[in-house]
Every structure is written in structure tokens, then in C-alpha cells.
């Protein structure tokens, strides 16, 4: 590597041939979460890297073994916290599958609206952070206002913004109020323009294209071998989407396409996420139309009629003995679940989020496992970044949409 006319001659075996070990994380401003990577660097190029997991492991699966079903919902909030409602809904769907609860169509459509809003907010933050990591902060600032609007819609329904604990087994805790629908309409009206502007800033910008194209690429075959799902797999060219392959919550009633990429690099992941936001938007529109078409008593339904699992109305609890008894039974977790094993997965913000629930007939799950897509992506991270520059590795991490809360559960 030394050239003849270099002025400073370093002794043999010094920094020219040595590699540097760099700890990226566990709390590094560039990693957006608690990730540790021990990297061997040759200059700025990554020779090898080893990832660590477990820095924010909170033993959710163990905690769930001594909690009745409804108390597990707040735990799922804290998996992928960029799209907590999808996790909540996935959990309710799992419980409903085990308990054999059938939800009315209106509930399904309301759930679809909330889940697709969550997908938009998830993709929005992921893509704008890819922008931030490539040095373009502006796009991030412009779109955050609309994530805020999505959060306000959650707030109207459940009372909280980030850790939502939205919905209950069998439906929602309350009907959507008018403000929620007004805000939804505002979102549907204004968001397309914002997304278009966001794409204008990034998609065909030369710096952005050159920074992201070719970085963190993975072939369809390798991605499948690792067990990739979600946008990261679709960017590699496999059109696998849980919403199409195993429809839940009446997704079969909706028209949408599955955007796929070709090379599985950071740029493809960005494009796939953007395209999915357009699809989500159209799904929300369809669902909102379907909801408006309900009439009479059907237009007010927001939960299934399952008195064993869904809390009675508060007015009845205050005045009627029967309701009070059910109320106590449900809250104290004294309604035993049936024995059985179920697996239910949903298309989460960043991949297939699965719940594997084993019940031995008691009040709490015997065993519960979360299939967290991030955990799988993180296994592939060294393969994706070896040989690339450190700054591109940071972009790759954002574009895989790794969320520490979900990684460690």
C-alpha cells in the first residue's frame, strides 16, 4: 500500500495493515436504538462485524406467562413501537383465533384502517430516517406533521399516541367518534400531496440514489434462507405478503398490489416502502367507503358480542348485578381459555409479526412466542454490510427498519 514518494514512512505492520475495532453502540446516536456492533474496520471499510442482542431484553414472553390475555396487549405495544396498533391487533386476532371469536365486518374494516395508518407511520419514519442518514434532514421534518396526525387519530380512539393499547378482544374499546373520522378525512385529503413531495425530494435525487443503490443488497434466495419477510423480502423480489397469503381481518375484501423490487438493496427497500404507502392509502380509502355504507344498527357496531371476554358497558356495571359479575370475572382473569395451540401472523410494519400461543386451559398462556421480524433481519446484518463503508452500514441499518424494542422483546 505504501507508495515510493510518501513522506512519512511507517514501520512494517503499523496502521497500514492493522485493523481498528470500533464499538458502534449500544447507545450510539447513529443507530436509532439500542444496537451494538463490534466492527473491524480497515480505514472506513468494514472487514467484519459482530452484532450483539439483548440490551433491552425485557422478557416479554416470560412476563406473558403470568398475565391474563388482556394484560398482554400493553406488552405488545412495546415490540415495534413505530406501529404499535398492528402489534395490538395481531395479538387480539391471536386471542380471537384461540377463543373462536368471530368479529363483525365493521370491526374488521375499522381495524384495517388503524393497521394501515400504522403501516404508513412506520414506513414514513423508516424512509425519512434513511433520508436523515444519507444527509437529507428536510424530508424528515416535512412528513412528521402527518405522522402526528395519525397519532391524533389513535388518540381519539384509545387515548394514547405511541404505546396505544388499542382495541380489545372482539373489537374496539369504544366506537370511533366524529373527530376521529374528520381527522381521517383530513389525512386522506392532504397526505397524497405530502407523500408526492417527499418522493420528489428523494426518489430521483442523484446523491440519494448513489448513496443507496447497491448498498446492503441481498439476493432473494439469501433473504429467504434467513427468513426475511415484509418490505425487506419484497425489495429482493419475492412477492410475499401475509395480507395476501393468509388474509386476516377481511383483507380479502380489498384491492391492492404488492410492490416488489429487484436487487434488495437500500434503494429498492426505499422504493418498496414508498409504493406500499400508496397502497395503504388506497386500502384506507376503500375501508372508509365500506364503513360509510353500513346503515342502521350495523353502523354502530364496534365489538363482537362475546360477553365472556368483552367487558360489559360501564352503565350496566354500575347498576346491574349480572354485568358486575361478568366485569369482575373478566378483569380478574377468571374466564378460562380453551386448551390449544394457535399461530396467527399479521403483516407488521417491517415484516411478518407472528404470535404462537399455547394454552393449557388456564387463565394465562402456557407459552407465548413472538415471531419478531427484526430479530431475523439483524442476523443478516453482518453479511449485508461486510465490505461496505461504515457510513453505508448505518444507512443499511435504518433501511432494514431495525427496531430495538422488537429485536430484543
Amino acid at each position, binding site marked *: 500500500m505504501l507508495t515510493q514518494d510518501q513522506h512519512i514512512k511507517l514501520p512494517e505492520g503499523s496502521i497500514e495493515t492493522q485493523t481498528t475495532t470500533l464499538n458502534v453502540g449500544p447507545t450510539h446516536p447513529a443507530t436509532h436504538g439500542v444496537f451494538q456492533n463490534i466492527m473491524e474496520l480497515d480505514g472506513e471499510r468494514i472487514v467484519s462485524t459482530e452484532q450483539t442482542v439483548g440490551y433491552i431484553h425485557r422478557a416479554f414472553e416470560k412476563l406473558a406467562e403470568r398475565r391474563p390475555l388482556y394484560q398482554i396487549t400493553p406488552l405488545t405495544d412495546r415490540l415495534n413501537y413505530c406501529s404499535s396498533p398492528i402489534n395490538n391487533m395481531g395479538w387480539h386476532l391471536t386471542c380471537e383465533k384461540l377463543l373462536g371469536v368471530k368479529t363483525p365486518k365493521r370491526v374488521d374494516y375499522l381495524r384495517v384502517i388503524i393497521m394501515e395508518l400504522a403501516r404508513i407511520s412506520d414506513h414514513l419514519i423508516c424512509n425519512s430516517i434513511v433520508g436523515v442518514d444519507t444527509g437529507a434532514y428536510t424530508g424528515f421534518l416535512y412528513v412528521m406533521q402527518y405522522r402526528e396526525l395519525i397519532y391524533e387519530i389513535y388518540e381519539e380512539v384509545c*387515548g394514547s399516541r405511541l404505546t396505544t393499547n388499542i382495541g380489545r378482544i372482539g373489537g374496539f374499546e369504544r366506537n370511533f367518534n366524529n373527530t376521529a373520522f374528520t381527522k381521517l378525512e383530513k389525512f386522506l385529503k392532504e397526505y397524497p400531496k405530502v407523500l408526492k413531495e417527499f418522493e420528489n425530494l428523494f426518489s430521483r435525487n442523484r446523491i440519494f440514489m448513489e448513496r443507496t443503490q447497491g448498498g446492503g443488497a441481498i439476493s432473494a434466495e439469501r433473504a429467504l434462507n434467513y427468513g426475511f419477510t415484509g418490505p425487506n423480502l419484497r425489495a429482493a423480489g419475492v412477492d410475499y405478503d401475509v395480507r395476501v397469503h393468509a388474509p386476516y381481518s377481511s383483507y380479502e375484501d380489498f384491492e391492492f398490489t404488492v410492490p416488489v423490487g429487484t436487487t434488495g438493496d437500500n434503494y429498492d427497500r426505499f422504493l418498496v416502502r414508498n409504493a406500499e404507502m400508496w397502497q395503504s392509502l388506497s386500502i384506507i380509502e376503500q375501508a372508509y367507503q365500506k364503513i360509510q355504507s353500513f346503515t342502521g344498527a350495523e353502523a354502530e357496531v364496534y365489538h363482537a358480542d362475546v360477553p365472556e371476554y368483552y367487558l360489559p358497558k360501564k352503565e350496566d356495571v354500575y347498576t346491574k348485578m349480572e354485568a358486575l359479575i361478568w366485569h369482575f370475572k373478566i378483569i380478574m382473569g377468571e374466564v378460562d381459555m380453551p386448551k390449544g395451540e394457535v399461530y396467527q401472523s399479521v403483516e407488521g410494519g417491517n415484516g411478518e409479526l407472528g404470535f404462537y400461543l399455547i394454552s393449557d386451559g388456564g387463565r394465562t398462556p402456557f407459552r407465548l412466542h413472538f415471531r419478531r421480524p427484526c430479530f431475523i433481519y439483524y442476523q443478516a446484518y453482518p453479511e449485508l454490510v461486510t465490505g461496505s463503508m461504515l457510513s453505508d452500514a448505518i444507512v443499511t441499518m435504518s433501511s432494514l427498519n431495525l427496531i430495538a424494542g422488537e429485536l430484543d422483546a
Partner: protein
Amino acid sequence: MQALTNRAQAVNRKPMTIMEKLYLPSIAKGMGITFSHIFKKQPTIQYPEEKRPFSPVFRGLHVLNRDEEGRERCTACGLCAVACPAEAITMEAAERLPGEENLYREEKYAARYEINMLRCIFCGLCEEACPKDAIYLSETFAPANFARKGFIYGKDDLLIPDPTKDPAGFAAAKGEGQ
């Protein structure tokens, strides 16, 4: 890879055109977008001087409710503590003595009632669990204190004002007249 569905749609990944390679038009376009935002309405809220409206079901810090005669509603049934996934609520029950009917609504009441706000995750399950209309999550949030001890809220911190002594405070706590 063979297609798994008939819904796949490839994303548009065409190579850069000469105009895009030149980059200067892109700068102009980006700058144009940025400048156009100068004239848009500012979305920022100047907290804490200015506050955004909350939804009526917002989940903030808790309050313990009183009825119109100023009696505490809580009967120390313990359901809220059972429902709490964070195990943040503790209470001690006591029996109402003769002559205390103007203080407590039910024959049993919470002599001590504490919520550890550092454990609480503001999930709202306690509010949902209460069969006596006694505990609510309010719109107050972002508490501050000097020591951890201060975050263990007792009954003094939680109970809303007594309507017989402070009707205005009671009405405000009930969210009326806003």
C-alpha cells in the same frame, strides 16, 4: 423467483437520465420545495405556553373521583390493582365508621391508595377495571419532581377537589366549563 401472487408490481427503478445526472436541476427542485415551505403555516406548537387540544379520552395522570356530595367513590375493591399490568397500584382498605358517611360513599374505603407513577405505563386498564366510577386518567401529563419518592402519588395527590369546598376546582377536574 417465480411469482407467488398475481398482484406483484415492480417498483420503478429506471437508470438516471442525463438531466438527473447533471444534478443541478435537482438542487433547484429541492430548494424550490424548501422555499415553498417558508410561506406555509407553522405546525409547531410553542409548548408550554400553548397547548394542543387533547382527545376526551386522553390517558394522562390519574385522578380519584368524588361524587356530587364530595364523598370518595373508591371502595377499595382492588380491581384496578389486579388489572394493572405494571403492578403500580397499592391500597389498604378500611371500614367506614358511623359519622363518616359524608366522607366515603361506600361502607368500605381506601385508607391508603398509592400509584407509583414511575411504574405506571398509562395503559388505562385501571380506569377500565373500576366498577365504581372512581379512577380516571386525566389530561395532565409530564409530571416533574426532585426525587423518586415524589412520584409515588398518594390520595392527597390523586383526589379531585371537594365540590362542597371548591366547586370551581371540582368542575374543572370533571372537565366541565372548558
